[in-house]
């Protein structure tokens, strides 16, 4: 019997949770993964847009 292969994001979630010091219960992982998958998918749509290197982010700090 072989173990169920883990999702590629599982190791990332484990590492990020440890780095961020957020304790995660096993039952939460599927939903966290699903949310993260959607977010990465949408972030990829944003990243497809080519912006010049000198593009300023929207919030501008004024001293």
């Amino acid at each position, binding site marked *: 019997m072989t173990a169920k292969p883990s999702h590629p994001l599982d190791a*990332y*979630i484990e590492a*990020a*949770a440890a780095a*961020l*010091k*957020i*304790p*995660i219960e096993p039952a*939460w992982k599927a*939903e*966290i*993964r699903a*949310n*993260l998958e*959607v*977010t*990465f998918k*949408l*972030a990829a*749509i*944003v*990243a*497809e*847009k080519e*912006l010049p290197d000198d*593009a*300023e*982010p*929207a*919030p501008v700090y004024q001293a």
Partner: protein
Amino acid sequence: MPSPRRSTKPEPVIDTGWASAAEIVEAVKAGRVSAAQIVEDTLARITARDPVLNAFTDVLADRARARAAAVDKAKKKGPLAGVPFAVKNLFDVAGLPTRAGSKINRELPPAQQDSPLIARLEAAGAVLVGALNMGEYAYDFTGENVHDGNAHNPHDPTRMTGGSSSGSGGSVAGGLVPLSLGSDTNGSIRVPSSFCGLFGLKPTYGRLTRARSYPFVSSFDHLGPLARSARDLALAYDAMQGPDPEDPVCVDRPIEPALRTLAKGTKGLRIAVAGGYFKKGLFPEACVALDRVAAALHANAEIEIPEAQRARSAAYVITASEGASLHLARLRTRANDYDPAVRDRLIAGAMIPAALVNQAQKFRRQYRGEVLRLFDKVDAILAPATPCTAPAIGQKTFRLDGVELPVRANIGIYTQPISFIGLPVVAVPVPLAPLPIGVQIIAAPWREDIALRIAYALEQAGVCAAPRPSFQG
């Protein structure tokens, strides 16, 4: 056969269950009804109807009675004299912990002071009667809440009010109050306005102070009113404008009243319908509503809001990240006290690399520039507010073009690309049967007056109206 007898009972001077704020003000100023009577009627309706609607989390009877007495006593009556209103429970209300729909925040000490928007409405004569249910920490489009119970839609209590300003929608649509305040980060005023059949105003980002309200995503957080008429939106909006050094986002801009130009009509305004992204994924009722509004305004031209899908994607990424940043410390220690659906989204949000969030903020500036150029050609853009009418409470998915899609994630697809760059929007209700649905009127920054003028014209033409529910509690 008995002869008909004329009733000696006097006709009520005002139908307080459905009177507009403007009608209440007129009656109070004319001395036909007292603010005290309005408040008593309001409290009685809340007692009768709220067990079904679950719009209120706090009813402030003593405070409202004292305030109404002061309004009645005052020689000079303000522009909102005697108008009862209620606020989403993320507004600070003196004496209440600002729970923001959560379990955790109700342990906070009571707020010392009211939010300035409450203070400004009361200075104009309005009377705060309570705080309203909402989706936990405003991360919600449904109106479902595991801590305070779900809000129920007055037009069909088995259906969602929409969120996250759920009680703000249910309380006004259910005739409990004529006016409420909500917040809108990605659509949380416009979605409940659509599902509950109300007029809702999300002003320009930075127009109304957000001081002493519980935040969600600072980049997109807005506060604004919901009402049953465009005039009532303008009345409340005018009373709430003005700079506030307590909110660094609030602009130092003179008050630009919208009420005085409300009835100016739409002649000369260039109005187009948003095409492309905003025409995809619509249920038939959303198309019918949009077509009716466009036809009434002779808005025959279509205009493409470029990059709307990317804008919605970027709004989603920034929301997840900023929301998680706000809650990070609590996620470490109190994760089990969150609604699981909110908790898992926030934890995922905390794991988004900063580089992706920064890219989204860079795109935001570029998108803003492109969209603002559209306003050289048009004064207002029409777009759907929601893809569908109110789904059933608990419904997880809907079928669109044969594809099963999650409800939660798709309710706000048409509102997110607009609040992303802070444009002012009035959501107007189209009273379809059996359920109403909203249309967005989008204007250039600082032109709330134009969106309100168009909303008023549609109301006068009978195309848009807040339908009165048969539900009486």
